[in-house]
C-alpha cells in the first residue's frame, strides 16, 4: 500500500480524498494555490505545499509544480480528484514515467477515451449499443449532409475531444448543419485544441443514466448499479440519484453487463463511469466513459456501502477487488444536491465571503464540503461549494430527508442554488420520478412565466 498520497485538487473532493487516506492510515500531501492557504484540505492533510498563485492554470493544473511537490515530499502516488489534471493523459503519462502512481486508469486509456469519436467506433465494433451516427469524424459538409439525411433530423454535432456539454450542437434542419459544425469546431479548437467533430442521431428528451464500474489490475471488474443524472442545466448536473427511477432490476442487469463489456473492451482499470442515454422505450445507448471519480459518486456509496475513493486507492496499489458482483447490494435510495455558489435564478456565479454556514445532520444525511463557518468562495474556481447527500429506505424517504436537510442548510454571504433545489425536489414530476435531460429547462421556463 502507498505510504503517502499527494492530492492534486482542492475543495470538497480534495477533502474527500484526504479523509479516505486518513481512514486507511496513509499520509497525505495537500497542494494548494495561494488563494487556498487556509482551506480545510490544506489543514486536514499531514503536509502541504504551495504550488502557485490563485489561477488554477498556474497551480492545480501546473504539472511541474504538482510533480515537484510530490518529489520533495516523497509521495508515492497522486490522486487527481475530478477536473484539473484528472483526465490529462500527458500528466498520467509523466507520473508513470517517473514512478509515481497516478490513481486512475492508465494514460493511454485516458487518451483513448478522451477521443469520443474513436471510443464510439471501438464500442460499435464490439456490439455495444451506440446511437446511429457518422462513421468516424466528419470529413466535409457533403459528408455531414449525407449522414444527417440518413439518420433523420434532429441530429447532434459533437466534438471528438469534447466533454461536459462543450462542443455540441443540436441541428433540426439541413440548412443549419454547416453553421453548427463550424460553431462546434471553433469551440472544440479553442477549448480542446482539436477540432474534429462527428454526428449522432439526437434522442429527444432521454434520461442520463450512468453505470459506476470498478476494475482491478488483474482484470476483475464489477459494477455498482446506476446513477440517474437527468436533472441538468446546459449539461451541468444539478441533482443525481441512485438507483434510477427508470431502471428496474432487469434493465440494471442488462446495462451492467454492457458496462462491464465496455470495461473489458478497452481493458479499463480503476474506477470509471460508463454513460448511457436511455430513451422512452428503455433502449439505452453508450455515450462515453468518464475515466475518473465523479462529483456524484456519493449516491453510489450511500446505496452500496462501498467507499469508492478507498477502492480507487486499493486498486491503484495493485490490490485485487474485495468483492464480486454478487456481493454488491443496493440498499435504499440516495439523492445528491449540488449546492453551487450561484444565483438560483440567473445562475450567475456568486463568489464572496461566507458569513454563516450551518450544515444539517441527523439520520440519512451526508454533507461533503470544504466550507467552514467563515470562509471564502473564490471566483477562480468551480462554483460547487457543498454536496448534500440524502439516503432513505426508499425514494420518498430520500426526498423527504433531502428537503428537510435543505431547509436546515444555512449559507449566508453568497447566493446558492438551495432555493432551486427545494423547488425541484417538491416538483410533482420529480417526485414521481418522471424526469429527463429536458426537465430542468422546462422547469425553469415554466417558472419564468
Amino acid at each position, binding site marked *: 500500500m502507498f505510504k503517502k498520497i499527494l492530492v492534486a485538487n482542492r475543495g470538497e473532493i480534495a477533502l474527500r480524498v484526504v479523509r479516505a487516506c486518513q481512514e486507511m492510515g496513509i499520509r497525505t500531501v495537500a497542494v494548494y494555490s495561494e488563494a487556498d*492557504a487556509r482551506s480545510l484540505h490544506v*489543514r486536514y*492533510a499531514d503536509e*502541504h*505545499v*504551495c504550488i502557485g498563485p490563485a489561477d488554477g492554470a498556474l497551480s492545480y493544473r501546473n504539472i*511541474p509544480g504538482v510533480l515537484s*511537490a510530490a*518529489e520533495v515530499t516523497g509521495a508515492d502516488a497522486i490522486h487527481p480528484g475530478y477536473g484539473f489534471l484528472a483526465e490529462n493523459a500527458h500528466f498520467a503519462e509523466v507520473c508513470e514515467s517517473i514512478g509515481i502512481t497516478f490513481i486512475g486508469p492508465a494514460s493511454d486509456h485516458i487518451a483513448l477515451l478522451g477521443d469520443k469519436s474513436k471510443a464510439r467506433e471501438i464500442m460499435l465494433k464490439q456490439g455495444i449499443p451506440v446511437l446511429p451516427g457518422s462513421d468516424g469524424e466528419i470529413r466535409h459538409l457533403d459528408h455531414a449532409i449525407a449522414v444527417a439525411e440518413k439518420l433523420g433530423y434532429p441530429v447532434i454535432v459533437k466534438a471528438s475531444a469534447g466533454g461536459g456539454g462543450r462542443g455540441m450542437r443540436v441541428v433540426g434542419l439541413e440548412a443549419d448543419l454547416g453553421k453548427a459544425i463550424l460553431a462546434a469546431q471553433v469551440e472544440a479548437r479553442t477549448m480542446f485544441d482539436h477540432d474534429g467533430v462527428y454526428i449522432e442521431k439526437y434522442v429527444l428528451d432521454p434520461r442520463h443514466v450512468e453505470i459506476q464500474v470498478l476494475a482491478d489490475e488483474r482484470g476483475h471488474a464489477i459494477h455498482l448499479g446506476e446513477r440517474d443524472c437527468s436533472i441538468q442545466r446546459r449539461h451541468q448536473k444539478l441533482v443525481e440519484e441512485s438507483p434510477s427511477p427508470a431502471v428496474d432490476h432487469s434493465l440494471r442487469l442488462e446495462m451492467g453487463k454492457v458496462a462491464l463489456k465496455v470495461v473489458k473492451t478497452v481493458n479499463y482499470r480503476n474506477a470509471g463511469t460508463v454513460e448511457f442515454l436511455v430513451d422512452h422505450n428503455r433502449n439505452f445507448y453508450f455515450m462515453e466513459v468518464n475515466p475518473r471519480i465523479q462529483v456524484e459518486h456519493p449516491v453510489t456509496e450511500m446505496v452500496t456501502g462501498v467507499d469508492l475513493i478507498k477502492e480507487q486507492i486499493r486498486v491503484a496499489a495493485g490490490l485485487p477487488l474485495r468483492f464480486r458482483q454478487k456481493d454488491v447490494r443496493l440498499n435504499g435510495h440516495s439523492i445528491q444536491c449540488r449546492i453551487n455558489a450561484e444565483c438560483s435564478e440567473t445562475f450567475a456565479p456568486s463568489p464572496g465571503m461566507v458569513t454563516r454556514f450551518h450544515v444539517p445532520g441527523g439520520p440519512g444525511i451526508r454533507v461533503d464540503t470544504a466550507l467552514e463557518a*467563515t470562509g471564502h468562495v473564490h471566483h477562480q474556481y468551480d462554483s460547487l461549494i457543498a454536496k448534500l447527500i440524502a439516503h432513505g429506505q426508499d425514494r420518498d424517504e430520500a426526498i423527504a430527508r433531502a428537503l428537510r436537510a435543505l431547509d436546515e442548510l444555512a449559507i449566508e454571504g453568497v447566493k446558492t442554488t438551495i432555493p432551486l433545489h427545494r423547488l425541484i425536489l417538491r416538483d410533482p414530476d420529480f417526485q414521481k420520478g418522471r424526469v429527463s435531460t429536458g426537465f430542468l429547462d422546462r422547469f425553469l421556463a415554466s417558472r419564468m412565466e
Partner: protein
Amino acid sequence: MNGERHKDIQELVDILTEQNLTEIEVERAGVRIRVRRDASPPSRSSRLPASPVDSGTNHPPEGPVESVVEDSSGLFTVTSPIVGTFYRSASPDADPFVEEGDVVSRGQVLCIVEAMKFMNEIEAETDGRIVQALVENGSTVEYGQPLFVVDPHPVT
C-alpha cells in the same frame, strides 16, 4: 514605531482575532491606539498538522505573497517562483552565489531551485544588497516562500 508599541498593538490584534472583534481603541497618556478589522479572516483550524513536515515544507501557509514583495521598511523579499529544492551554490564544492552583505545587480543569479531535475536559476529583480538569506542550503521551498531579503537602497 518602537518595540513596546508594537507589542501593545500585537496584543490588541490578538484580542481582536481571538474575540472576532472589528475594532478596539485604547487611549492612554496621550496615546490612542485603535485597531479595527472590517472582515474577520477565516480562523485557522485547531487541527493543524500534528507533526511538522519532515521535508521542511511545512512553514505555515500565510496570505498571498508576490514573487518580489516590498514591505513597509522599503526592503524587498525574493520569493521562490516554484516548488523545489533550494541550493545556494551551483555545485556542492562551489561558493554560494551570494552571501549576506553582498551587493547584487539586477539579473544576477542568487540561488538555484531544483524541480523535476531542472535547475532553475533565481535572479535578482533589482539592484541592491542582500540583507538576509532566509533558507538553508538543500531545503525544500514552496511557491511563494521568501528566500532573500534585499535592500534596494543600501547606504553606501
